[in-house]
């Protein structure tokens, strides 16, 4: 099963994705894609590590070239990929220039990842809600992230928007949410 969670900064996407991973079961893999650029990033990573300690996740770090980590995965895994946003930023702006083909490439890699394991939960940021027109590179990044998310959404069994720790399904995944879990997962 493929699931996509999208939400604003600190909306509770990762925590909900962790709970969903646990509900799905199997070996839980946390596929961390953010490359620490500075102390702020390192603090953020440390906080995320602390938040998922005790959940039983194996952490795999892959900041670019996603397929390089495929050999560490098994078909029974439940993978939480956090986040599409960071992965695209690193693939698109690696070094000096901008790679305009990064979006299409990572969408393909992300779907291939989902096909190799039992369950995958993709986490992405909602950065499409304000009126600002940004400078060209930022707009192209926003556009590509939207296209990656829309491509993933087409292939996902469930797509949800996360707001303030509350999950709302825009496409309800058949068979995942049952009985007492229904309340927790919208």
């Amino acid at each position, binding site marked *: 099963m493929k699931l*996509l969670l*999208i939400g604003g900064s600190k909306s509770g996407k990762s925590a909900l994705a962790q709970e969903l991973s646990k509900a799905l079961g199997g070996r839980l893999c946390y596929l961390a894609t953010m490359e620490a650029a500075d102390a702020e990033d390192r603090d953020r990573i440390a906080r995320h590590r602390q938040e998922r300690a005790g959940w039983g996740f194996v952490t795999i770090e892959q900041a670019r070239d996603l397929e390089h980590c495929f050999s560490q995965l098994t078909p029974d895994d439940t993978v939480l990929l956090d986040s599409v946003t960071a992965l695209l930023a690193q693939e698109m702006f690696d070094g000096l220039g901008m790679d305009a083909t990064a979006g299409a490439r990572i969408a393909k890699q992300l779907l291939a990842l989902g096909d190799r394991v039992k369950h995958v939960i993709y986490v992405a940021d*909602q950065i*499409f*809600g*304000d*009126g*600002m027109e940004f400078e060209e590179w930022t707009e192209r990044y*926003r*556009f590509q992230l*939207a*296209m990656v*998310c*829309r491509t993933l*959404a*087409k292939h996902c069994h469930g*797509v949800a*928007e996360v707001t303030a720790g509350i999950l709302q399904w*825009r*496409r309800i995944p058949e068979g995942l949410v049952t009985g007492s879990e229904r309340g927790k997962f919208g």
Partner: protein
Amino acid sequence: MKMKLILGGAYQGKATWAASAFGLAQTEFGDFPAAGKWGQCHLERFSRACVESGKDPVAEMAILEPMWRSCVLISREIGCGVVPLDAKERLWREAHGRLLRYLAVEAESVVRIFCGLPEVLK
């Protein structure tokens, strides 16, 4: 057909969804006000132009009613970010918010598109 209002954030697939939901070809879309087009896009640019020339988008829209009363109107939501420091940007956001409220009342249906997926609001 009666007017329908399609809303959503940037690049969410609003026009793509409208094209398939209402059976419209790419060529039937244009930026509002586009004479003779079923799909009228980027209302936020129209309200921007109104504000820049000192006009009220709601009043201007009402005058143009025959142009859009049987169309699919498509607009970005622009009010979900930080309140801009610049006075003109603030005016635009507010004027556009009022325009969408006016159109939502007039619309037969209102749909919000999120990541290519529709959510019917009205």
